C-alpha cells in the first residue's frame, strides 16, 4: 500500500511538470503584458517594472527562475495584487471555494439521493413525475440564470438573504451561492439514484428477497441501496468538475473571494504568476484526490488493487 502510494506520487511529478510547462508557455504567448494600461507608461518606468519582476530576462531564464521558486514552494509575487504573493492569495481563497464546493456537494448528495429514492419507490406516480420534472428542469437551466433569479427574489424583493458575500458576516451569505451551485447537481444525482434503484429493484436477488417476505423498506435499506449507489459514487468525479466550473460563475455573481474568480481575473489581467499558481495548485489537488479515491476503492474492494 505504501509502495503503491509512493509510486503514484512519483508518477505525478512528470504530469505536474508537463502542466507547468504548458501553462507557462500559454500565459507568455498571450498578447498584452501584465502592466499594460490605457495610461501607457514611459519607457524608463516600464524598464524599471520589468527589471523588478524579471520580465526583461529571456523566457527560458524566466522559466528556470520560476521552476526554482516552485520547487522551494514559492510561487512568486502576484502582478495584479502587488502587496501579496501567489501562495498567500491561493491560501486565502482556496478555503472559501472548498467550503462552497463541499457544502454544495453535500447538499446535492443528500437531497438528490433522497429525492431519487422517493421517486424510485413511487415510480410512475404523480410524485415521481413532479420530482423528475424538477430534476430535468434543474439540469436544463444554466447556473448564471438560476443565481441572479435567486438574488432578485430572496435578496432584492424579500430582503431575506444577502445578495452577496460581503452583504452579511454570518452563514446566511453561503445559502444562495450553495443553492445555485447545488441545484443542477441535485437533479443529476436524483436521476441517477432513481434509475439505478429501479434497475436494482427489478433484479433477481431482490425478487428472491421479496419472495422471502421482506418489506419494501427493508429491501431498500438492506439490499438495494448499496448496489444502487455505485453509479452515484462514480458520478462524484464529474460532479467535482462541474462544481469547479460552476463555482467560477457563482463566485463572480455573488462576489465571493474564491479561487475561480481569482483565476478569471488573473488570466484577463495577464497576472502570469497567479495564473500559473492556480493551475499548478489545481492539478496537484486533482492528482491527490484521484489517489485518495483509488486508495479508498482499494480498501473497499481488494480486487481493484491489482497494479
Amino acid at each position: 500500500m505504501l509502495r503503491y502510494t509512493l509510486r503514484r506520487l512519483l508518477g505525478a511529478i512528470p504530469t505536474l511538470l508537463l502542466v507547468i510547462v504548458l501553462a507557462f508557455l500559454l500565459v507568455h504567448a498571450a498578447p498584452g503584458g501584465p502592466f499594460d494600461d490605457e495610461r501607457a507608461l514611459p519607457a524608463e518606468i516600464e524598464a524599471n517594472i520589468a527589471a523588478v519582476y524579471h520580465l526583461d530576462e529571456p523566457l527560458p531564464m524566466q522559466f528556470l527562475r520560476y521552476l526554482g521558486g516552485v520547487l522551494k514552494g514559492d510561487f512568486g509575487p502576484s502582478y495584479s495584487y502587488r502587496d501579496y504573493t501567489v501562495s498567500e492569495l491561493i491560501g486565502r481563497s482556496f478555503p472559501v471555494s472548498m467550503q462552497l464546493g463541499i457544502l454544495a456537494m453535500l447538499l446535492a448528495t443528500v437531497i438528490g439521493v433522497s429525492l431519487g429514492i422517493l421517486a424510485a419507490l413511487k415510480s410512475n406516480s404523480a410524485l415521481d413525475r413532479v420530482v423528475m420534472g424538477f430534476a430535468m428542469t434543474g439540469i436544463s437551466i444554466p447556473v448564471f440564470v438560476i443565481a441572479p433569479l435567486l438574488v432578485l427574489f430572496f435578496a432584492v424583493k424579500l430582503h431575506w438573504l444577502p445578495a452577496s458575500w460581503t452583504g452579511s458576516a454570518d452563514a446566511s451569505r453561503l445559502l444562495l451561492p450553495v443553492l445555485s451551485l447545488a441545484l443542477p447537481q441535485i437533479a443529476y444525482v436524483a436521476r441517477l439514484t432513481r434509475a439505478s434503484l429501479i434497475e436494482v429493484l427489478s433484479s433477481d436477488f431482490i425478487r428472491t428477497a421479496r419472495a422471502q417476505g421482506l418489506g419494501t423498506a427493508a429491501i431498500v435499506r438492506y439490499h438495494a441501496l448499496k448496489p444502487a449507489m455505485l453509479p452515484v459514487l462514480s458520478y462524484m468525479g464529474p460532479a467535482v468538475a462541474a462544481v469547479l466550473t460552476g463555482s467560477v460563475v457563482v463566485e463572480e455573481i455573488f462576489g465571493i473571494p474564491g479561487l475561480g474568480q481569482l483565476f478569471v481575473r488573473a488570466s484577463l489581467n495577464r497576472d502570469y504568476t497567479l495564473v500559473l499558481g492556480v493551475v499548478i495548485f489545481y492539478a496537484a489537488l486533482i492528482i491527490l484526490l484521484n489517489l485518495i479515491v483509488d486508495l479508498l476503492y482499494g480498501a473497499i474492494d481488494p480486487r481493484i488493487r491489482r497494479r
Partner: protein
Amino acid sequence: MKTTRLLPVMFATLAVASILLAACSDRGSDRDSSRSDTPVLDRALSTEPESLDPQKSRSVQAADVLRDIGEGLVSYDASGEMVPATAKSWEISADGLTYTFHIRPEARWSNGDAVTAADFVSGLQRLVDPATAAFYAAELGNVVNAADIVAGKLEPGELGVAAAEAQTLVISLVRPTPYLLSLLTHPSTFPVHRGSIEQHGDAFARAGNLVSNGAYVLADWEPGAIIELHRNPYYWNDAETSIDVLRHHIVTQEVAEFNRYRAGELHITSTVPPDNFDRIRAEFADQLHIAPTLGVYYYGFNMSKPPFADNPELRQALSMAIDREVLVEAITGRGEAPAYSWVPPGVDNYEPVQLPYADLSQQERNAIAQSLYRKAGYSEQNPLRFELRYNTSDTQQRIALAVQAMWRNVLGAEAQTVNVEFQVLLDQMREREVTEVFRSSWFGDYNDANTFLAIMQGDSAANMPGYSNPEYDELMRSAGEQLDLDRRRLYLEEAERVLLADHVVIPLYFYVSKHLVKPEVEGWQDNILNYHYSQHLSLGAAEQDGRP
C-alpha cells in the same frame, strides 16, 4: 460499510456541514458587532485595487481607498475645491521654482507618531526610486533630478526635495509647474511611515502593518471581496470625522452592484447599470447622482499607416459624419456630454477649444463631410473600407455599431467592427500595425489641461494615434515654461487648436460619474474630480423601508 449506515452517514455529513457553517459565522461575528452600534458606511469599488501601497498603486480605485487612508500636503473638500491638508500653508517663490510647505504640528500617523517633512521626503524619493517600480514615477518629472533618478542615473537621495526643518518641506523644480499642487493631492505623493517600511519591507502596506496618516486606517483586506477601514483616532482632523467603519466592497458586475444596493448592502454604488437606465432614473430619481467628470471617450486614427496617415481631409470627414447628439441620447444615454473638444469643460484655468465645425448643424456637417470624402477619392462605387477596433464590452459595442451605421449612412464608408480583449487592444494600439481606427479614452490625473494635452506630444507613451507635429510639441514646450497662468493658458489653447485641426482623434463624448447614493448619506457633493472622501460623509436616520 454496511448499507444500514448510509442514511446516518448522510446526516453525519450534514452535521459536518453545519459545523462548517458555524465556523464561518464565528469568524465574521466581530464584524457584525461593529454594525449594530457604530455607523458603518458601505461603498463599492468597481475593480479591486492592485495595491494599497501609495507609491506602488495605480488604479483609480486604489486611489479612492488611499484618499481615505492617507493624506497629502494638499487635498480637496467635498465640493472638489483644493484645501490645505497635512500642510497647513505654503509659499511659492517668485520664479515659481521653489515650493515651501509648512506641515501641521498636530498631524499624526495612525500609531501616534508625528508626521514630519522627512516622511514626505521619503515618500517622494520612494516614488522615483527605480527599485519601487512605481507607475506614477514620471509625474514628478519637473522636480530637480527626478527624471535622472527614474532613469537610474542618480540616487533617489538626490531628488530636489528637502526637509528644511522638522515641519518644513521644500520642493525644487526645474521649470514652473502650475499644476504641482494638484499633483500633490495624488496618493502617489503621500508620505510614508519610515519605521514601518523598515520593519515590514514590501509587506508594509498590509492590514495590521500599514501605518497611515489619513482619517482612516486599514483594518482588513479580503482580496476579491472587501477592504475594511476603521477610524484613525490620531488623525489631526478626527473631530470632523463622523463615520467609524468604512467598507469598500469589490463589485465588478454592474447588475450585481445594483442588486446589492437595492438589497440594502451598499450605501453608495460606483456606477449604474446601462440596462434599464430610464427605469432606474425614474425609480431612484432622488438617489441618482450624475456629474461631469475629467474623462474623454474618443476614436483615434493610426497616423502611421494608410489610409489615414497624411489624409487629414478623410479624417475630418469621418469625424464630422458622427452625430454626437444622437450618440449620447440614444446610445450611451446616461447623461454624457457630446465632445467637440479634446479637453473636457470644467478644467481649472482653461477654456477648451471647440472643433472648427462645432457651430454647424449636423446636416451642414454631413454635407461638408460628403464633399471631403469624395475629394479624398472615395465614392459609392469605391467606398472606403477599414476596421474599427474596440475592446469587448457592451457599451463599446453599442457605440461602435452606431458609429458604423452613421458612417455608412452619411458617407457610404464601410467600417468593419472588430472587438478584441482590452489587453490585446492596448498592445495593438501601441504597435500601430493592425489598427486603423480604434477606441480609447483618457482620464485626467489632476485638474489641469496639461494632463490631456501632454499625452499627444510626439514622445508620450500614451500617444496612441502616433501623432507627431513639431508645431504642437513646440507650443506644449512653451506652455511649460510660462509662469503666468493666463499666458500659459494661451499656449495650451493654441496647442489644442492645432491638435483638433489635424483631426488625429475624434472626441465622441465626455464621461460622467454615476452613483446611486442612499438618502441617509449626508454630505455628498457631486464634483468634476469624482472624489468623494469618506471623511466628509455622515449617516443620518435610515429610511424605514430599508433592511433592519
